[in-house]
Structure formats: C-alpha cells, structure tokens
C-alpha cells in the first residue's frame, strides 16, 4: 500500500502556501524608532515576561504609555504619538529624575530607579555571515515540493 500522495501534497501546500506575510513592524521596533534607543527594547520593558501577551503589559512605562496614548497591540503606529506625549509631559515612571523617553534614548530602563540596562547582553561571537542573495520563497517552496515528490516517486520504484 502506498502513501496517499495527493492528500499529503494538499496538506503540505496548505501548510506552506500562505507565505505572504513578512514580519510586520512591532512594538520594540516602534519604541526604538520613536524614542531613539540604541536597541529595540526587550519585551520586558512593558510586559511581565518575554512571552508577552495581552494584559501582561503592566510595567510602569507601559502603564504610562497606555494612559497617555490609545494603544492597540495590533497597531504599532500608535506608539510614536504615545512616546511624543510622554516626552512632552516629561513622564518619569521610576521617579529617578530622568524622564522615561530620555532614559529609553540613553539605553536605560525607565522602570528602574537609576540607570538599568535596556539593551542587555550581546549574542554571538562577533563574526558575521556575509549577506547573500535574497532567497526567493516561492522558488524554495517549489524546490522542496519537487524534491519530496521525487523522493516519494523514487521509493515507489
């Protein structure tokens, strides 16, 4: 008995086909752009943990932004106006005398009294992979499907 190749192919296609979405701009990138921080801040600048999630953005900085700006988790474009408003009001969530936005811009944690590291450790050993030609996703998908079908066909013989 041979594997039902058509249903398998259909399921694979459904798994891989909707490959249209690239990563959309998200909150860390939006905060970095708006506040001018040296790195995209970690999720924990707003959320309880790096897992994020609705209802977990309870850090003082997040609460201050939410109070001033009408934030929507799915709309990072709302971050910039909220940052501007924080800056205008010189909000200082941790009460250390330096405003939240100034702290973020300096790479400091606005939730922690004092300087606090916002960017965290560096990862990797310093070397880089030379950027190469951009991979064509559709060509790649096609090659994978062709390879799989060849393997299946070869095995049937």
């Amino acid at each position: 008995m041979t594997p039902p190749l058509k249903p398998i192919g259909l399921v694979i296609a459904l798994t891989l086909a909707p490959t249209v979405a690239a990563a959309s701009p998200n909150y860390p990138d939006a905060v970095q752009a708006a506040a001018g921080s040296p790195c995209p801040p970690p999720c924990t600048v707003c959320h309880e943990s790096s897992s994020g999630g609705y209802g977990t953005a309870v850090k003082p900085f997040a609460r201050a932004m939410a109070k001033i700006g009408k934030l929507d988790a799915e709309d990072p474009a709302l971050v910039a106006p909220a940052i501007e408003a924080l800056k205008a009001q010189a909000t200082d969530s941790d009460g250390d005398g330096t405003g939240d936005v100034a702290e973020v811009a300096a790479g400091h944690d606005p939730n922690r009294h004092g300087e606090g590291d916002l960017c965290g450790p560096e990862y990797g050993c310093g070397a880089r992979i030379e950027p190469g030609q951009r991979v064509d996703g559709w060509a790649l998908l096609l090659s994978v499907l062709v390879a799989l079908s060849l393997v299946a066909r070869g095995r049937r013989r």
Partner: protein
Amino acid sequence: MGLFFRAAPFVLVLSTLALTTRSAHAYGFMIRHGYGGCTTCHTDPSGGETLTRYGRAQSDLVLRMRYGTATVSAAPAPATESFDGFDDFGDSPKAEKPPAPAPAPEAEDAAGPASSSGFLWGAFAEPDFMALGGSLRSASTLKNGDFRWFPMQADLYGQLAFGSLRVGGSVGLVKTRAGAPHGRAALVTRGDDGQLNMVSRTHWLGLDLDSRRELLLRAGRLNVPFGLRISEHVMWVREATHTDRESDQQHGVALAYSGEKLRGELMAIAGNYQLSPDRYRERGYSLYLEAFASSSLALGASHLFTVAQADRYSLDQGETLRGAHGLFTRWSPLRPLVVMAEANALHLSRRDLGYVGFVQLDYELTQGLHLGATGEALDAGRVRGAGSDQSKSPGAGEPRLGGWLTASWFFLPHCDLRVDAIARQNEAFTLLSQLHVFL
C-alpha cells in the same frame, strides 16, 4: 535515473539550508513502546537530536505511518510478565540490547525498516563511528487573522565516536531579531537584526566511563538536564525554567547515567559563553533523576540553581538567583495513550515564589497519527522591589492558564506535519502548523 532520485534529498537539504530559522524532536511518548530511556535511540543520553541507527530503524517501524504495511504501533501491547528495565525490547533476551538492525534494502514490503530510514533517506551510509542528522522545520501561525510563515529550524547535527571518546554538536542557520526571546542565545555569528546568522545549540566532547556505556562525561555546550525533554520549546514549563533545547543550552560539564531502571544527568553550569558581558552568564548546576516503576511508568525529579550578576531576561542589574525544583512523570496506561506531566516550583531574585506545570495526553489513533491535549499553568511570581508594579496579574502573582489541542501526522519517512490550536489566557488564540523534515 537512480542517481537522480538519490540526489533529490540533497536538493532538499541544500535548498532549505539557504533558508533561515529555530528546535527538534525527542518524543517522551515513546514510553508506550517500552522505550523509557534515550540512549538506544539518541546519542544524547537525555534524548533529542542525533539518532542512533537503532533509533532510525524504530522511527521507521513504530513512529511513522506505514499505510497498512507491518503496522505495529497501535496494536495491543504484548503482555509482559516482567520488567527488564528502561529500554524493554519485548521479545529480546533480557539485559541484552539488540544490535542496531541494518536498514534492509526493499524492506518496505517486509516487516523490517525501510532503506530510507538511514541518513538522507539512505542516500549516504555513515561509517560505524559516525551518526549524522538534521532538522528542517517550517512553521506558520494564524493569530488574530494574521497569517505568518517562518522557517523555524535548519540544523545539521551529529556525533563521532572513537572508542570511548565522543565528539558531538550541531550547526544551523537562523534569522532572529533584537529582543526576541528565542534563538539569540545560541548564536555564533553576530549579524544585524534580521540578518542570517549561524547557531550552534550544542557542541561537546565526551568520554564513556564504562564498558557498558552507562556513564558518559561531557564538556561543552549542552542541553540543560531538567524535566521532560519535550519538543515544544514555547511550552511554559520549558520557557519559565529556561531549559528548552531551542537555545537555552549552557556551557559546562555533565555526567549522565543511563541505567536499566534509573537514569539521570548532573550538569555543572559554567554559563553561556555565546553571550556577553559576563555578568549576564548564569552559573550553577542542574540535574534530573528518573526511575522506572514499571515498563510503562517513569517518575522523575529535577533541580536547578544558578547565580548571575544580572538577569538577562528582565535586565535587572543585580545578583540574580534562579531556581526551579519539581517532579515529572510519563505513564502509558494503555499502549495508544501516554500521559506526561511536570510541575515545578520557581524562585527568582526580586520576585515572589512561583510555579509552572503541564499535563499532556498523547493518543496514537493509528500508527503515525497522534492526537494530543495539553493543559498548562504558570505563575512566575509577582515582581517585588522599588519601581516595580506591585499589582498581581495572570502569570505574575496569579495563575495563568493555557490549553493546546494537537494533531501530529508522521506521514512519510523522516517527515511529519503538526497542527496546534493554542488558547492561552491573555493571549490571542493561535493556530500553529509545522512541517518537519529530519535528515
């Protein structure tokens, strides 16, 4: 033409390695077949990644769907009068592990493993001292109506064994971004945000300390020995204890024992030397011990304790003590059903005590097709200290609950599809699908 078909897997490999990436398999539910231990099927004494030849054969015989050919997995388990130990080989002579069965040519129509069970579907026969493998995993998520696809993992891994000396490790490619909770800790290269980078999740030197290969001493970057070694690196029980096989490995020295009715591993953690500065590196130890009460029931305990000068997750700049202590079990009351559970107490500097746990049911509907249900709970503890919000929230002072419904289909040799419906408190419903190919 035969050469062309044999070359097809290479096309697949090379094509997909051009991609980006994240981690792999270790199936605790294999206890339903009497495989409680890991060393018969994996080169890592605690499971995961590189398969032994015997493991490859078992993957072909009892894991994947065989479409009516010598299906053995969902058949009723033979009654066993006695329990021989961790890796009960059924009809095999007691206390003697069967030799790794060589993949037989044209075995598809016979009862043995197919020739395609070998590395690269049998296209390359490794010499005896070598075990090679790899994982390519593509994933897509549907969340809030937003469909995304991303390459999750593109790793090659293996082991060389020269007498009692072993060398093992993995290399792969990954695209990750600043602030991402996964992937970065295993980076070797340091490219720009979103650029292709090289990862090495494990790399180690090992020495078998006895002739039965029950004691293995290793040094290098290793999976942290703690709890159930499951493939779901985003499951809270792995995330909250920072013990997944995705990128939570640490450098250090570990001693593993793989006995017949007891197994365990103790690791002295020297820190993750793929991140800097040093103040973020955690040092301490981690261990687990698992005992078999019967051929279908394993009970274990884990303990982890580390110290760092700063917390790399919260970025708190102060001495950070982290601990996790818990129990876990694997139980197969009926051959098609496996129950896995783990519960841990958590403690972390500047947080109240917390806990994390999960219960997972895996039901093998027919060989190669699994249905699963998982419930998980997390309370990482409320944050304490000046400047912190003192209120409780789900997951931080209050329990946060989650549930997974899973379907896995091992549809062809080396290939499986998995779909998870994930509902978690304070998180949008997520439909996650994965296509996994192992080499």
